[in-house]
């Protein structure tokens, strides 16, 4: 374990419906690294990600952040991570700007202006539009814009590219690379072919493990 290791799991096991999805999983992730979790449908990618956020309890084993278990850290851990799951976490009744302001209030705001954030995810003209009347892909972009509006080290992303058109995919891929190059960390799943072969990207094939 190098001094840079921030996230590690010990003997992580997940059982659902009597099926052992994975067991004895030992992950180590250093600052500046990205982990892409792969595997066929139902192999437990979403479950793993939710365990890493602490939203779900592991059936065995533990997740450690900076050497402490995340249960003990609680709030301290959440200051440093951001999660975008299957659900967007976007309030339909609020406008795009209001949604981002909310995200900032709940976390640590980044230095960017919100207008610039919207500009970057190509939603600038929708700033005052209610999120409920965005299309599936636009809403996904708004969810991902949270990553820019707040400041966190570890991004945990469950199929971030769902519903995105190709231009948006390329844009976010660039963003992810910038994040890890700046010393951030990403754990993500995706069924899309991601055109990334950065030396810092590691892949975990959950399907093979099972």
């Amino acid at each position, binding site marked *: 374990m190098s001094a840079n290791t921030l996230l590690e799991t010990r003997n992580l096991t997940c059982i659902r419906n009597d099926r052992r999805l994975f067991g004895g999983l030992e992950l180590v992730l250093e600052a500046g690294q990205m982990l892409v979790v792969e595997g066929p449908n139902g192999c437990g990618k979403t479950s793993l990600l939710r365990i890493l956020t602490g*939203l*779900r309890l592991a059936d065995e084993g533990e997740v450690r952040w900076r050497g402490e278990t995340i249960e003990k850290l609680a709030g301290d851990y959440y200051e440093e991570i951001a*999660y975008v799951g299957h659900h967007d976490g976007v309030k339909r009744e609020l406008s795009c700007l209001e949604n981002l302001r909310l995200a900032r209030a709940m976390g640590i705001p980044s230095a960017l202006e919100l207008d610039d954030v919207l500009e970057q995810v190509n939603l600038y003209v929708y700033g005052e539009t209610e999120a409920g009347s965005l299309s599936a892909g636009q809403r996904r972009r708004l969810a991902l814009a949270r990553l820019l509006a707040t400041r966190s080290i570890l991004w945990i992303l469950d199929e971030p590219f769902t519903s995105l058109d190709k231009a948006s995919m390329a844009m976010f891929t660039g963003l992810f690379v910038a994040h890890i190059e700046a010393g951030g960390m990403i754990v993500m799943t995706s069924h899309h072919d991601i055109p990334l072969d950065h030396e810092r990207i590691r892949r975990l094939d959950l399907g093979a493990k099972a």
Partner: protein
Amino acid sequence: MNVQRLSLWQAFVFLLRRDLLLALRNRAEYAMPLLFFVVVITLFPLALGALPELLARIAPGIVWVAALLAAMLSLESIFRSDFDDGSLEQILLSAHPVAVLVLAKVCAHWLVTGLPLLLVAPLLAEMLGMPSAAQPMLLLTILLGTPILSLIGAIGVALTVGLRKGGIILSLLVLPLYVPVLIFAASAIENAAMGLDVTPQIYMLLAFLFLSISLSPWATAAALRMSAG
């Protein structure tokens, strides 16, 4: 642009304001507990064939049962939509203590659904022929009692929000816990109508209020964490 991290108090106020804003955007939906309250109360004269003296006698009971049901029906709105769209996960993963954020949401819920009952209660009391001596007490019990309903109810919603049709299981969980509030509030009004002492009931409601303010947010936060899992 303020890019400072919010203090706990600021986060509380922010979330409270967000929920009030959402309520404003969904005006029609949030007006409903109030309307439900009114409708339930008007059902009774219809069902009972309206004998003025009988109605006046059961008025405190009816008003409070209606308040209870109205509060109960509006409970789901505290967390349901946040759960469905994934905002709840974001709240649980927030850098601030979840219990405080939960309290903000419950406060907003009370301001939107509990407080308005105060405004129509005098009218309804008049309609049912409640003696005027009892009316200030009706308002006082609503003021003290409805926050308790919201606070206790939040625990119930937090427990059931993960279930697809939690709505009605919720009532089973929550109603038994509401009964003490109902009993003390209704008996305070009755006593007031007779010009009797009501301090024991009021103290009891105050006790419930303080206990639930200090304990329920923790229980709710724990329950939410469990539901999200």
